[in-house]
């Protein structure tokens, strides 16, 4: 029996998925995951026309999957329906591009200085909104030419991880990449920057499973050897992490040979926070943190794709190990950005309206910075609340450096727990 058949039979129509869906609370007419997933799939098998424009409004946050008490893969069913969904030409072209952040990055980073200036021009943004359906209110992240590659933090007898950067780090946030390298080096781990490109998640989210399949197929080959050798594959982006932990099987699982490889790679993948907290639990994390009281109040937002990985806010707990840090867990649901979703002009109001709960929680907490590991969550947070946002790795590196300032150099030694 096909997996989706089992999944269909499991649905009890209980609506737990609807209750967990961030779009449902923001958009009263949105029919919800129960309808768009299992319900439409059943009707589709009856031979009925089942396309719905609402499919485009699914964020892909997978909270429905988590909520289901009966193991229905609601999100997967919606993703399949999304892939068959017919869009008008303009949205099709735009989504084709948004499905390929790697390609976008490669092109723009040929002349990043020019591109950044042009993309920041109000007139260009209005033009993009008119022609390409990109929300004029959004600003694009800055692109850079430099890329991180090769092995960093080499030391004798060091453990190694293969680091999966993801498009955001590769093209926009190299500084964060260097922070991650420093964080690992501080713990005596050398970092091999993988050549692997886009994880394929944006393609899946934009209803382009063929492109997603191409991406994961290429990545599987690039990551398999390391995983087979027992080297952890680490990423600092939760959406990449979610994709790397499940996407290979989802998209290549029909082929038994690839399915076997997929399982090897998927089980080697760790979120960086997950990786570090595991070490902390084993007493292998350097705790040489300096006092960070100067950072002021911080607030933590956990991305949807962190929860779907079954992680319980590892970064929040890591940051709480730093002396002087005052951090609050916002626990206010989805930010509404959902990767490329919030960039789409017609989805922009829904995106912001989903984020309201979070923005209000931020306003109440009044932090100096919001901490979150997802790059697009951070974009949305700063856009919606006006508060700057930062990846937790950056703060943790600062904490190590703070100690070095106090100690006047040295460091790297492990502290027994």
């Amino acid at each position, binding site marked *: 029996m096909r997996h989706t058949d089992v999944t269909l039979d499991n649905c009890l*129509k209980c609506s737990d998925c609807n209750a967990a869906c961030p779009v449902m609370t923001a958009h009263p007419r949105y029919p919800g995951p129960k309808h768009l997933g299992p319900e439409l799939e*059943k*009707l589709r*098998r009856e031979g009925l*026309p089942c396309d719905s424009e609402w499919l485009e409004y699914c964020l892909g946050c997978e909270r429905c999957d988590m909520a289901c008490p009966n193991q229905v893969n609601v999100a997967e069913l919606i993703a399949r329906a999304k892939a068959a969904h017919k869009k008008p030409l303009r949205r099709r072209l735009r989504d084709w591009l948004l499905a390929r952040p790697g390609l976008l990055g490669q092109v723009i980073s040929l002349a990043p200085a020019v591109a950044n200036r042009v993309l920041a021009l109000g007139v260009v943004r209005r033009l993009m909104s008119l022609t390409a359906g990109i929300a004029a209110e959004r600003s694009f992240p800055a692109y850079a030419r430099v890329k991180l590659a090769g092995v960093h933090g080499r030391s004798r007898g060091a453990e190694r991880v293969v680091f999966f950067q993801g498009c955001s780090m590769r093209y926009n946030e190299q500084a964060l990449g260097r922070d991650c390298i420093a964080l690992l080096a501080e713990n005596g781990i050398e970092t091999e920057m993988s050549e692997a490109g886009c994880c394929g998640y944006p393609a899946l989210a934009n209803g382009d499973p063929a492109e997603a399949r191409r991406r994961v197929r290429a990545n599987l080959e690039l990551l398999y050897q390391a995983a087979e050798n027992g080297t952890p594959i680490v990423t600092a982006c939760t959406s990449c992490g979610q994709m790397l932990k499940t996407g290979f099987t989802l998209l290549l699982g029909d082929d038994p040979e690839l399915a076997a490889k997929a399982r090897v790679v998927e089980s080697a993948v760790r979120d960086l926070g997950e990786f570090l907290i595991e070490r902390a639990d084993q007493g292998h994390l350097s705790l040489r943190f300096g006092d960070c009281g100067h950072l002021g109040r911080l607030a933590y937002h956990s991305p949807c794709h962190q929860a779907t990985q079954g992680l319980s806010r590892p970064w929040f707990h890591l940051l709480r190990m730093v002396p002087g840090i005052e951090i609050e867990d916002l626990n206010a649901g989805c930010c509404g950005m959902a990767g490329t979703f919030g960039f789409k002009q017609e989805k922009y109001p829904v995106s912001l309206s989903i984020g309201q709960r979070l923005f209000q929680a931020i306003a109440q907490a009044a932090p100096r910075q919001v901490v979150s590991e997802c790059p697009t969550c951070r974009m949305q947070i700063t856009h919606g609340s006006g508060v700057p946002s930062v990846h937790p790795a950056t703060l943790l590196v600062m904490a190590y450096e703070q100690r070095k300032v106090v100690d006047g150099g040295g460091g790297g030694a492990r502290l027994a727990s």
Partner: protein
Amino acid sequence: MDRTQVVIIGGGATGAGILWDLSLRGIAAVLLEKRDLANGATGRCHGLLHSGARYAVKDAEAARECLRENRILKTIAPHCIHDVGGLFVRYPQDDPAFFTAWDRACADIGLPTAPLSAAEALDLEPNLPSGILGASTCPDAHVDVFQLTLSNLQAAVARGGRFRAYAEVTAIERRGGQVTGVRFRDTLSGDEDSIDCEMVVNAGGGWAQQVAALAGLHVPVRCDKGSLLVLNHNLVTRVVNRCRKPGDADILVPAGPVCILGTSSITVSGPEGLRAETDEIEALLKLGTELVPCMAESRVLRIFSGVRPLYVPQGADKAGGREISRGFALLDHGVEDNLDGFVSIVGGKLTTYRLMAEKTCDLVASRLGVDEPCRTAETPLRPPTPEAVTRKIRHLLPAQAASIVERRLGPAMAQLAERIEADPDMAEILCECEQVTRAEVAMVMAVDAKVPVRTINDVGRRCRLGFGSCQGTFCGYRAMLEGYRQGLWPAEAAAADFKRYLDERWKGQAQIPNGKQLEQLMLSHDLFGPSHHFHSDGEG
């Protein structure tokens, strides 16, 4: 005192077909049904519109009859039929001699079939077992039995025919050797009433014997119980028949969003109080798994049992003259039993309901001296739908809901559109599995509906509400509230009917051997059990 020419007893497909046929001939008639439409054998069968292929080997005449009716019904009632086609699949464990006999028999009666290799058949139906030897196509189809019965009634009512549900006939009045009328009781209100008439037609199906007994006559009907399993989704997209001598559980019919496996065959004492036995269910599932292996892991939604009312005359010589067809018999009690104006139509099968009605009405018309021929074979049950109405509904409803309601309502979608345009909230989907809108439920509940409803279950038989995987847990409740809003029932009656409704739905799920539907049932218990004080004394 009410008067009419003909009273028909029994609101199955045959009774409804007779009401339509008489109405077309201009004969005034009233149909009395003790519960609601399609409550007996009609509503408790596979919903298979036979092509005749099933009977070709054993009984060429019955097969020809099915093939003719199959073609007629596809023309006059396309909105009731999913013309999915059928397969006769050759399994390695079955007798190869039957395969050749079947090919020959189908060719003999001109039944169009086409052979498929095993690979071709698996390509069409990937859930068939990989070891099959091959298959043949045939023009089998699925017929929505409720829709078919309802369409006959609606067409008849539009022509002046009358239908009364929950009217149980308590006596057949006679003066000397002539029927003069019937007395009946409203089974919901208890009110008694009567109708004078010139003729009574007994179309009681499984109850034909009891109906005849009201006139002091004996009509030998044997009740043969068949149990069927409803599976939660379409495991096959065509009717799958096992190519062998007809036996248990060898037909799987895709019926809209679900599929139905059947049947068993066990002689029982009467048409009431039917229950599928544990062994029977296990045997059905085991055979079903031979038919389509993944059935072993599939979710069973519901189990139901019906009876085939078989006509079993005593003494073959007597039978010879009375059998109009191999499958059914028309008894003119004026000739048989010296009771003029009383006619029984017994036996038969769903596929031949129209033919049974035609033969019955030919007799009734001749007794009444009406010289009008039968026109049901050429007259569509429903006028065509104006293109503008279809376009409007496609604009107002999501694609799948529009597509479903186009089949179900046809030209009546104009009223649906009016309701939604007047109040956009009416587009809300009340029954998710069957995509039934609030507007359609309101239409079904309207006091001026051609075939009115009195219970939530009746609503289901008009528009399939509650037929899907939740089995009315969510939509039954919403329908109850909508009925209250429409003034169909006051609060207390609404709650009482909902309790009856749930109880019946729960009964249908209680015997299910497979885990998932039990979880669904428990969810329903948890939601409504406490508020309705069900099982409050520790029974469940």
